[in-house]
């Protein structure tokens, strides 16, 4: 079984390009100014591959997956 992970974003690096929300609307929505709001909690296994793709496609390298041994803690995003 894989370690649970959650999405995180480097808020300083993030430029609001919005690719993450297009790729992964289940876990990422955009606020009124185009910046991502990440769903709290662990990434479901079914979305793990898509999440990894979203991290890979972020043009600012701002999106990340981080291990969350205690996934009910608020995410840093």
């Amino acid at each position: 079984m894989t370690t649970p992970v959650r999405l995180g974003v480097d808020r300083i690096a993030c430029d609001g390009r919005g690719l993450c929300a297009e790729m992964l609307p289940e876990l990422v929505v955009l606020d009124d100014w185009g910046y991502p709001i990440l769903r709290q909690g662990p990434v479901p296994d079914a979305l793990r591959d898509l999440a990894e793709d979203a991290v890979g496609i972020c043009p600012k390298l701002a999106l990340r997956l981080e291990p969350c041994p205690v996934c009910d803690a608020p995410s840093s995003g």
Partner: protein
Amino acid sequence: MTANLLVRDSRRGTACRPGRLLPCGLAEGPSFGDHLARHGSLPDGRRKESWQRATLTAIREAGLVGRGGAAFPTGRKLDAVRSGPGRAVVIANGTEGEPASRKDRVLLSQAPHLVLDGASVAADLLRAAEVVAVVHPDARRSVDTAVAERGAAGVDRVPIRVVTAADRFVAGEASAVVNWVQRGTPIPRGRPPRMSEHGLGGRPTLVQNVETLAHMALIARHGADWYRSLGTTEEPGSTLVTLLGAVARPGVYEVEIGRAVHEVIALAGGATDELQALLIGGYAGSWVPAGSALELPFSAHGLGVGLGAGVVAALPADVCGVVETARLTRYLASQSAGQCGPCVFGLPSIADQVDALAAGRPGTFGDLERWLEEITGRGACGHPDGVARMVQSALRVFAGEVSGHRTGRCRASEAARVMPWPIPDVVP
């Protein structure tokens, strides 16, 4: 020392009883000799592992928490830096970017040696290679004098470097302080890594508020039980507060945590008007209704809101809380470091909506409430969270006034500006 309400008026010439931290009747000083006469020397043997372990335990058992605003347990922070990779750095943070607060510069001016004792103790506990004191410009002379005295007396294992703090709201945030010392840019950086692992020059770094260090210096001398002989079980000790607004003698006072809020107000000569609300913590603090708060204990548990940097601003009944909130929000929006989208775009939009509310113009109140929820937790530092918390508290505490404004009525008779306003150019 008796467990009375501790009273310390920051101004000279008024009735004064010394607190734990602040002496009486001094504009500057005291000299190192006077400091030793009052507090005694720090204990010997501070380089011994046994002393360090015992003192770390005392700080944990004392229940000391940070006085810069976040109230993080000091013992846990020390543990984190102590287990960080490499030789540590201690930064005494006297930036005091909070516009309503005066307590750090008053402490640095009137008891610089107590703060520097605390920094020296922290350096011993962490076996640090460097101590940097980042101090508000108003306190620079006093700290320079104190550092020179200590250098001549040879009391500190690690030399203390003094840096004048940047003048900006977010400049006091731990990573912003590190950036200021290292690069001259007082802006926060994202996490991770944490300061305890990768701070100044990449070394584990303790960034600790100067008041917290002063308490540490006393705990190192007198122990945890002594510290806990004041305050409440959950929140032991005393704390410095800056009282302002509708009080007779605005200033810096030292209070026992857990005393009734009306006793705290009485320290400043009492209220000069009927009070409507108190802003607790600072500009990005929380509004509480005066009617109930005055009878509650002055503590985070008692008031249900954090004490932040110890600011208590008293809003009189005839001043509009919505207008005051709009001014605070506009100021805070102007103080974004400009790095994170939700803060850069969210805060001005929120300030616009609060302005519209204050002016009785049509606005999108639903957007405002949603934005306040959405920006929380979405900055590299806690700046947007603080703004959201303050505005949300205002919408609760001034709910009656808010609904009046939405139908074009304001019951306030005075447009008096209670909060200091550091940037006249951006007055709404």
